Structures are given as structure tokens and as C-alpha cells.
């Protein structure tokens, strides 16, 4: 569970790092990914792996188109406008999903459903293994992408100073679309991985809120921070569900978040930004 939060948080952090935009629609992109995959597998009978790839590709393309048509217009406006814009988009996605797929709850059959491996006497079901493996692979790939490829470095440059990057010949607009595609793709991967564990319904997007807390906990703009934050939130939920009285499970993560923010306002791994005059 923590890994899923980490994955979604990763999507948040990616967009934030590259375009300085806090994407409140991330959770809803996750939901769209899960629904698309479900639709392909169950309605059209596509194989799981093919459907996985198709769903991720579809949502990634959707993210890029979204950036090119809507979000590019507000580049350079105050952050508040951007945040509100993504909140509006999230509401639209949710309405779209509820009109297209209805409010029923679906389950996604996968090749690793109902199988378990025993690791050191603890039975671990394959669904959870798939989540953990997926997260680790994806993180490695993204880290390599941002550190070693030209495009990745260009993205980092674009995030630090859009104007300077543009003067250096980096196609900033295309970079942003690409970042949106990647981050939407990551959300879709998280959605598809999560689908067999939790059920698919239109409220799946609310996981975005928890992932958001994870991203903030780790320090916005720090990729390892997002993962650590996600795992921390997942563990807190797990342990508070076991050891604390009922009702604390849902809020324990938020209490911890508030405490951490009160002590370290920039999150665990965040850097302090100070405006120079």
C-alpha cells in the first residue's frame, strides 16, 4: 500500500519538479488508468499485459494532450490559479468516469490473482509483490532518465528557469508535455497495479489525497522523499490500524503529517526556498 502512495506521490513530484505545478488531478488520472485497463481486459478481452501497456499509453497521451490544450495557457500565472485549475480538472474527470462507467465497483482479474509465495514463513500474495516490484523498477528507470539522458537533464533545466532554458534552445513547451505524459503514465501504472488489491470505483481518485500527503511528507520536489513519504504513510496506516483503537487508521497519517510539517515545514527531504530581493 505504501508503495502505491509512493508511486502516486512520484507523479506529483515529477510534475512539480518540472513545471512547478501541483497536480491535484493525479489521483483521478490514476482512476482513469485503472478504468481503462479494466475496460480493455473485461469488456474487450485484451490480455492483461497488453491492456496494461495500452492503458498506460492511453493515459500518458491524454496527459500530454491535456497539457498542450489546457495547461499550457496558464504557464506563468500564480500558483494558486494552477492549483485551482487542476482541482477543476479533477472534478471533471470524476464526473466523466461516473457518467461513462457508472458508480458500480469493479474488480480487475490479473495473472497473479489469488496466488501467494511464502517468504520466510510469511505468505505474500503476488499482487503485493507486483506492486513492490513495479515501484522499484519504475523508480530506477525514472532516476536514470532524469540523471543520465539529455531529455531528462533538459527537463530539470526547464524547471529551474523556464526562460533561460528556452534561450538555451530547450523546447520548453514540448518538455512540459512530455513531463505530463510521464507523470500521467506513472499514475496509470499505479492505478493498474492498485486495481486488483483495492477495487475500482470512481472514488479511487481520493487515494490522490493520501499520496499528496506522502509527497508533502517527503518534501515536495524530492523523488526519494516521495517514496520514503509514501512508504511511511503506508506503514503508519498499517500499524495504527493494528495497535490503535478503531477510527485512528484513517487519520493517523494526517496527524503525523501535521506534526512533521509543524517541526519541518519543508518536509523531510525538502529544500528551503527563499526568495531573494
Amino acid at each position: 500500500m505504501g508503495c502505491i502512495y509512493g508511486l502516486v506521490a512520484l507523479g506529483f513530484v515529477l510534475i512539480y519538479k518540472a513545471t512547478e505545478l501541483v497536480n491535484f488531478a493525479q489521483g483521478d488520472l490514476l482512476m482513469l488508468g485503472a478504468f481503462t485497463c479494466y475496460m480493455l481486459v473485461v469488456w474487450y478481452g485484451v490480455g492483461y499485459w497488453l491492456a496494461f501497456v495500452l492503458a498506460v499509453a492511453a493515459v500518458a497521451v491524454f496527459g500530454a494532450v491535456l497539457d498542450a490544450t489546457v495547461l499550457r495557457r496558464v504557464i506563468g500565472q500564480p500558483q494558486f490559479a494552477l492549483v485551482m485549475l487542476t482541482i477543476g480538472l479533477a472534478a471533471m474527470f470524476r464526473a466523466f468516469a461516473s457518467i461513462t462507467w457508472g458508480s458500480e465497483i469493479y474488480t480487475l482479474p490479473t495473472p497473479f490473482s489469488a496466488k501467494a509465495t511464502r517468504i520466510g514463513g510469511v505468505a505474500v500474495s503476488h499482487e503485493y509483490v507486483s506492486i513492490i516490484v513495479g515501484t522499484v523498477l519504475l523508480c530506477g528507470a525514472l532516476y536514470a532518465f532524469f540523471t543520465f539522458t539529455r531529455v531528462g537533464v533538459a527537463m530539470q533545466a526547464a524547471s529551474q528557469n523556464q526562460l533561460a532554458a528556452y534561450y538555451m534552445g530547450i523546447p520548453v513547451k514540448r518538455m512540459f508535455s512530455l513531463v505530463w505524459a510521464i507523470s500521467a503514465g506513472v499514475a496509470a501504472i499505479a492505478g493498474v497495479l492498485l486495481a486488483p488489491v483495492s477495487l475500482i470505483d470512481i472514488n479511487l481518485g481520493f487515494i490522490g489525497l493520501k499520496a499528496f500527503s506522502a509527497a508533502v511528507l517527503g518534501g515536495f520536489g524530492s523523488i526519494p522523499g516521495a517514496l520514503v513519504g509514501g512508504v511511511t504513510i503506508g506503514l503508519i496506516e498499517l500499524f495504527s490500524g493494528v495497535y490503535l483503537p478503531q477510527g485512528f487508521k484513517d487519520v493517523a497519517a494526517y496527524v503525523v503529517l501535521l506534526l512533521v510539517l509543524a517541526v519541518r515545514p519543508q518536509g523531510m527531504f525538502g529544500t528551503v526556498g527563499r526568495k531573494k530581493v
Partner: protein
Amino acid sequence: MRFVFKTSYAQDLGLFRDSVQRNWYVALLAGLLVLPNLVPEYLVDISLVFIYGLCGLSVMVLAGYTGLISLGHAAFLGIGAYAHVYFIHDLGLPWAVSVALAAATAAAAGVLVGLPALRMTGVYLAIATLAFALIIQEVFTRWDHVTGGLKGRPVDKAVIFGVSFAGDVAFYLLCLGFLAGGLWLTANLLRSPTGRAWVAIRDSEIAAQSMGVNLGAYKTLAFAYSAGLMGVAGALFAHKIGFLAPDIFSVLFSIQFLLMVVVGGLGSLHGAVFGAAFVAMLPVLISQARDSVPAWVGAMAAVFGSSASESALLATGRFVKQPGLEPGLFGLILVLFILFEPLGIFGRWMKIKLYFSMFPLYKRATFRRQKAYMRSERLR
């Protein structure tokens, strides 16, 4: 174009720009006082506009004037509502005392959030308030003997000094009075040193600090004032809906308040009221459209023959009855406003006014805004 020449300090200190403006507001108030006789069937909805107006005012002070984004204002509304109901039903306090105490409770909660929030900016603040709201919602659910838990809690009609405000007209006037009072108080506060300090913090924290504004004190004050207003609104809201349940005060409700100030126009008191009117009346319009739109579409499709008409009627009927349509429509409107009119309804109104007062000389560039491309420029 009309210019106001100020010839005395009293004119500069006055609440209104000139007598013309004052007369317009007096006329508006008079119009609102006779409104119950004109549209009795919409009175309940208009009362809601006034309550939302108070909420909008509260969010406007925080987001529009102090520049602090809160995603948890529904929690303050809930605290106000539950505190009011607790004081009035369980402790049997008089109404006026209870409202004052509810406002104080909400303001205290505001300080509680405001204190750690002092060191946070932007996203961190938004998420901290969101976390607070979610915790408070859970508290509402679990704290059975005060809030009634998931079963909810019925609320009686307001009785103030022995006078019952159960009737629609009486409640309308009560809400109108509170909104007018809130507007007056806020308008006065905003042109006092406190208000100017808030605006200075919004525009540049560092500049404000250098000019001697105590950031911590003024941010906490903004939170407390905003939460207090929300508490009063909560007390009225409790009477309006007549039944409190924890799931009313959800994150979506908080987002609706933000929608209100963005659609109305950030940074203006007019905007808060316009936004409130918009958000409160839109569901009314939608529910009316639900009844009439399928009929129109059917009538239009009737040109192509009766079978097409019937299927069009059914299809649109099914479409507009979707439960998810309303939040989607809210989202769409929000997106359109941010893309095409970032200054909101009030901004549009200003532009129209300026267009006519400067008639052939109006330039679009008057309202063009500076864009910021560098990270350091946007760090606030």
C-alpha cells in the same frame, strides 16, 4: 468619465467613494429588503446565498487578501455549526451567546491551525489545512455524545430573545443582517492597518517583513478572523440545513468555497458575494434545467420525426439525470474561468464598467498581467 475630487480628509476616510456609490448600496439594501415579497419561492435559496456569502468573505480574507490557501475551510464551518448546536441544545445558552461562542471556538481552531501554518507556504499550507480538515471530519464522526456521530444531529429553528426565526422571511432577514454586518466589519478591517498588513503579506512577504509587519501575528490573526467568520456562517448553516452529519463538511465542500472566491474574483469583497450567489444558485439552475432541457432537445429533434424525438428525449433525460454531472459542471466552470477570466465575475464587471466609462479609448492591455517564468519569482 467621472472623477471624484476629494476636498477633505473626511471624504478620504469615508466607507464609500462618494454619495452616488453610497446611494447605490442603500438602494441595493432596500431592494433586498423587499425581495421576499417579489420571489417568495426562492427565499430559501437566497438565504443560502447569504450564508455562502459569509463563507466566501472568510475565504476571501485568507486567500484573496492574505494570500494563504486553505483547503480545509469546511472544517471551520463544521466546528461553528456543531459548537453552536452543542451550546444551544445541550448547554441551553441563549442564541446570541451561543453564536458568539461558536465563532470564538472556530477562531480558536483557526489559531491552532494558523500557528504551525506560519512557517509553511503554498502547497505545504494547503496540504496541512487539508489534513486538519480530514482529522476534524473524523472527530465529528467519532465524538458521539457531542456531534451525534454518523447518525447526525437535528437542529431546531433559531429563537433569538424569544423571537422565533422559523419562517422563511425571518430567516432570510437574519442571514441578510449577518452578511451585511460581516461585509461592513470586513470592509472596515481591510482599510485599517491590519488589512493593509494582510495585503502587504500577500504581495510580498519579504517586503512586508522589511516594512515592519509582524508576519506571525498577522497571519495568525488572518486565520483567526477567517475561521471566526466561518464559525458564524456555520451557526447559520446549521439552522439552514436543520440536520448536521459529518459527511457534509467534506473536502469537496472546502473546494467549493475556493471555487467561490476564484469564480467571484480574488481580492475583492464583491467577488466573494458574486461567487457565493453563483455557487448557491447553480444547483437550483441545474435542477431546473434537468426538467426542461430534455423537453427542448425533444422538441428540436421532433423536426426529424417522432421516433428521433423520443430517443433524443430519453438520451438527454438519462444524461442530465446522472448524479456525477453537477460536480463535473462545477469543475468545468472553474477551468473555464481560470483560462478565460482569471479575475472572476468581479473582474469582468470592472472591465465592462471601464469599457463604457472610457468608451473609445479602452485597451485590453489595462488588465494584462505580468507572467513569471523563473522559479525564484514564484517562490513566495
